[in-house]
């Protein structure tokens, strides 16, 4: 009898433990003055930008409490996995960070984020953000996020001293990829790495700028809506250029990430690097002077085109604190918020009403282009395609990186387009 009772007690204890742990999660939601902001901004200039935003938010909303829900690691992929499990379990944060544009498709299709079109009208955000941007944010007839910043992906960074050593004018501009390749070969003959590149996603970034340069903005846009044929000869020529460029890069690319590739240019081991304008922060941190130690121009053949990407914030369906979410979005859209965030992060405000006079020299050129240039959506950063499509493209590019098979790359890209084409 005694043994039975002991066993019973042990069993009950174990079961009650289970029950307690199952209930534990319910008590977390707590008071409604908390605004949990979910991002993958956990370090560097991204963290600095978030901190600057929080400062503005606290000033504007003294009665609300900011809760940092940042998840670090995996260039955002870890955060996205955590976020997805929370959304599917009905425990969304008050708001979460996402790349503006087609990357939001999955959340919209799954009914996980709210349409903010009415909020845009109510708050007058329509007038504040440029029309080209609003067009790119609109999906299925609605706008689902509020952009916090604008980055440009088609920038070419160069080390002036290295170019001089190779007998090339530091501020020389090129009309086309072909003209550029001629100089790259000259640099290679000097025993310097002509073009530095890093791991897979930076190769996708390079590929997208080559496509943009060779196809032109219109045909580039056609890649994403089915008007341009991925298997066609235009893309074939662009891929041949891409292949030539890749043969002029460093061989240890798979082991590097973008800061390492940019560092090669900063240190003078490589002449050029194609990277988004967050590279500006890396040059600035090391006290390099714009247009003296280094130059930044649009990738050859893409002058007059702004390959944009933006971070933005969403309003999850059934969020814990809708008022708090709106307050956060208000801060994001406000001129103070846009200026504070972008000065710290190195990007430019999405809002046209923000006062940008205090921004740095490179940022001023970006602001000017943003106002004048044709805007296209970046592939590598989620603006042009869904996550699924981008993943397929990335695997095709990664495969090419090791087998150098141009025909195989085009096949892989065409297949990816076939599998993911929007209906």
């Amino acid at each position: 009898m005694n043994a039975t009772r002991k066993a019973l007690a042990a069993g009950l204890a174990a079961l009650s433990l289970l029950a307690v742990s199952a209930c534990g999660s319910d008590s977390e939601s707590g008071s409604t003055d908390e605004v949990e902001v979910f991002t993958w901004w956990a370090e560097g200039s991204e963290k600095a930008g978030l901190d600057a935003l929080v400062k503005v938010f606290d000033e504007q909303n003294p009665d609300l409490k900011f809760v940092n829900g940042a998840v670090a690691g995996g260039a955002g992929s870890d955060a996205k996995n955590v976020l997805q499990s929370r959304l599917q379990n009905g425990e969304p944060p008050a708001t979460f960070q996402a790349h503006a544009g087609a990357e939001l498709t999955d959340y919209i299709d799954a009914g996980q984020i709210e349409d903010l079109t009415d909020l845009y009208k109510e708050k007058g955000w329509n007038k504040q953000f440029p029309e080209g941007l609003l067009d790119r944010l609109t999906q299925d007839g609605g706008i689902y996020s509020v952009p916090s910043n604008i980055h440009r992906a088609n920038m070419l960074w160069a080390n002036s001293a290295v170019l001089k050593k190779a007998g090339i004018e530091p501020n020389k501009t090129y009309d086309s990829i072909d003209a550029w390749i001629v100089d790259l070969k000259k640099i290679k003959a000097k025993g310097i790495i002509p073009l530095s590149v890093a791991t897979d996603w930076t190769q996708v970034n390079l590929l997208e700028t080559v496509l943009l340069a060779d196809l032109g903005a219109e045909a580039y846009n056609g890649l994403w809506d089915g008007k341009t044929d991925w298997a066609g000869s235009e893309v074939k020529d662009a891929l041949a250029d891409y292949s030539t460029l890749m043969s002029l890069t460093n061989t240890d690319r798979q082991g590097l990430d973008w800061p390492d590739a940019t560092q090669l240019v900063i240190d003078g081991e490589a002449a050029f690097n194609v990277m988004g304008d967050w590279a500006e922060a890396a040059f600035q941190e090391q006290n390099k002077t714009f247009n003296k130690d280094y130059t930044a121009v649009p990738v050859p053949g893409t002058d007059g085109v702004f390959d944009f990407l933006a971070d933005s914030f969403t309003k999850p369906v059934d969020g814990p604190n809708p008022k708090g979410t709106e307050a956060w979005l208000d801060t994001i859209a406000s001129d103070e918020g846009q200026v504070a965030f972008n000065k710290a992060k190195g990007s430019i405000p999405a809002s046209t009403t923000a006062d940008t006079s205090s921004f740095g020299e490179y940022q001023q050129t970006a602001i000017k282009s943003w106002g004048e240039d044709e805007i296209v959506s970046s592939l590598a950063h989620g603006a042009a395609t869904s996550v699924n499509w981008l993943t397929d493209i990335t695997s095709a590019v990664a495969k090419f990186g090791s087998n150098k098979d141009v025909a195989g790359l085009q096949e892989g890209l065409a297949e990816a387009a076939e599998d993911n084409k929007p209906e």
Partner: protein
Amino acid sequence: MSSTVPSAVKRPEKPGRRKGRLGGHGWVAPVLLILPTIIVIGVFVYGLIGSNINTSLQDRHNIGPSQGFAGLDNYRDLFTDDDFIYSLRNLLLYTATFLVGTLCLGFLWAWLLERKARGESLFRAIYLFPMAVSFVASGVVWRWLLNNAEGDRASGLNRLFGSLHLDFLQNPWWTDERWGILAIAVPAIWQLSGYVMALFLAGFRGIPEELREAARMDGASEWQLYRHVIFPQLSPVALSAIIIIGHMSLKVFDLIMAIAGQTNYTTQVPATQMWVEFTRGDYAKSAAIGTILLLIVAILIVPYLVSTYRQERRR
């Protein structure tokens, strides 16, 4: 004698006695005792395996809910996908190298220590130590050691080869399309050879000195001694080592993530592919890969379990 033995055996089988000791419901106590374990394992192991298999049979290729039952389509897609075949091939190469490498090195070290090498405890510590480091931590170091830059920019092992004027040994390591995966096996072998050594050393020590002496008395040569006395005694140890290393190898994930990252083509194995598919929200495909991995591990483990079960019953 013959009259006392049967009665001694029979005594516990008397129904009255058993009832008296366990209070009539002999099964209640033990069942209650293991019930929490059964429930927890049932839910978190078998329940989740079932749920995973169910997901793998659904048409669920984005973060939205399932679009219906897809049958074996996901599996068919996987086995017609060149990339998946490539990652299976990588896994096979990796497992073979990892197994052979750890078994040979582990056995060699154990044998040397068994031969009464000097400073045994020091070497044991040195060889066993890598096992205490996690794959992720050692991966970060090996990522640098296995850097594929050659010539002036070389670092890690390539730099070492360069400075020793062994330039021909410089190679692209894990970025080579055909043999790159073998470079991942190098740190894995480094990390687990010591463990295999410990297993074999325990095996060696478990062989009574009398057996060897008896063999030597019978005139066995040193080779015959190993061939007929020591190896047969070590074979259960070797089998355990194969099972342990083998199933670890099939599940390799952390080491590859730490060294090469998740989207790198040359070091793709099913586990990293499963992660990529999961991250993009293709739940059905990643669940199908998970199920295939489970089956592969089962192919290795189940015969082992069956054979040990049989052996135990025979005893």
